[in-house]
């Protein structure tokens, strides 16, 4: 501000900043004090205020251009594509995914060679000991001798006073009946990803989508397209969530703690989509008034149709 740098009168840029309340408090105070005593600068300021009002008035004569629904839908679809694309990239670029990819690559390279398979079998037997899991893995890898070697070493190391040393030292021959019951395999942990598509064909003219609960995170994107059969898919973080075809449409079995996203494609031949999210009021989408490739997004936090 030129007033603060010693000039006698403020420059035009200072007047504009004063008029737009863009000066800091102290500069605004100094400017105000000057304007109270300087008729010339006050006149300049009033001139700019008049010009600003005139220009603003004229600018509002330009048509209040609003995008039509088509432009808005196209833009929203592009944003949705970017979101899903980013999530896909982000999930693969995360540290756990990179680590997993490195492990898979290492195993693929290792298991392709005989020394590699022996290395893996040795490692597993050494870590887990000669149990049913390592036995099966070694058999699968064609590395039975690794097991024998390990058992021989174990027998040699066994204490003499151990009961029934002959039994302990001898390689145990396992028969299906003698083999101890294999422990229950751990329940596979579903990792984030994309569920298999679930197709459904409602019996009536309507498609009903029911979300069991309001989610903490996530959204449902409804695509209305010319497709023979409707289908739904959970995208990312679908542990504990499921899609179940019903007579009227599709039931999304989620919980309030779910955080998946859903893509549901509806054939355009249906007349309505009824969407119900937990206890929220039902949303009715008239497909006959929608365009092809139309996209609706339901924010599951608010269950408001967007």
């Amino acid at each position, binding site marked *: 501000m030129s007033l603060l740098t010693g000039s006698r009168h403020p420059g*035009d*840029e200072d007047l504009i900043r004063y008029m737009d309340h863009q000066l800091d408090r102290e500069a605004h105070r100094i400017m105000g004090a000057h304007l109270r005593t300087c008729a010339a600068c006050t006149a300049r300021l009033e001139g700019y205020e008049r*010009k600003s009002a005139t220009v603003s008035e004229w600018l509002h004569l*330009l*048509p*209040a251009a609003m*995008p039509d629904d088509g432009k*808005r839908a196209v833009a929203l679809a592009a944003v949705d594509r970017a979101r899903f694309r980013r999530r896909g990239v982000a999930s693969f670029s995360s540290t756990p995914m990179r680590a997993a990819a490195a492990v898979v690559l290492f195993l693929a390279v290792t298991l392709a060679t005989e020394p590699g398979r022996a290395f893996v079998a040795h490692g597993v037997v050494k870590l887990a000991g000669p149990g049913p899991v390592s036995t099966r893995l070694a058999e699968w890898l064609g590395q039975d001798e690794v097991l024998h070697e390990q058992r021989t070493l174990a027998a040699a190391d066994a204490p003499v006073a151990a009961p029934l040393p002959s039994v302990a030292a001898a390689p145990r021959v396992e028969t299906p009946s003698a083999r101890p019951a294999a422990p229950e395999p751990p329940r596979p942990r579903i990792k984030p990803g994309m569920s298999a598509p679930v197709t459904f064909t409602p019996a009536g003219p309507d498609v009903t989508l029911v979300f069991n609960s309001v989610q903490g995170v996530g959204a449902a994107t409804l695509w209305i397209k010319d497709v023979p059969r409707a289908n739904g898919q959970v995208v990312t973080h679908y542990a504990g969530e499921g899609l179940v075809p019903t007579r009227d449409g599709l039931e999304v079995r989620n919980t309030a703690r779910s955080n998946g996203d859903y893509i549901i494609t509806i054939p355009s031949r249906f007349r309505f989509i009824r969407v119900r999210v937990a206890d929220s009021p039902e949303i009715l989408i008239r497909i006959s008034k929608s365009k092809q490739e139309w996209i609706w997004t339901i924010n599951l936090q608010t269950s408001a149709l967007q």
Partner: protein
Amino acid sequence: MEERLNVTQLFLQHYDGLYRYLVRLTGDADLAADAAQEAFVRLVERPPQDRHVRAWLFAVATNVVRDTARARVRWMTLLTGSPDRAPMGDVGPGPDDAAESAERRKVVRAALDRLSWKERTVLLMREEGFAHHEIADAVGTTTGSVGTMIARALNKLAGELAPTSESLR
């Protein structure tokens, strides 16, 4: 960051305003729609870390308009175009006031077109209520220069519009 931003909500809040600003800036509804869409896609792909989202969207869309090759071609047309070019926008004039409204819009559009790119940008962003430092970010200048550009743009535009102001009212 994208997880923290509710992009759909932001889209609903800001898309129409951004589009309106871009139509005023460019006079081209298609270009405005393209730039607005690109700004929101970039919001998803490279969200701002520490800036106000609305200002960021306007700055990005302004740069998209300025930088894309398509925009450059159209921009040259705009800079050299005749004042007779029809005003753009999706909402056309109704049959009743078509002639008068069209004449007024033509005058404003022509006056806007005679401003430089930066002058037009700062004036329209100011009209949208942005602070000078946000406008400065968008046009790549200092906050102090924004005041100078606004003063210059107001003087030019008022000079252009004042003679016709009375005759059209």
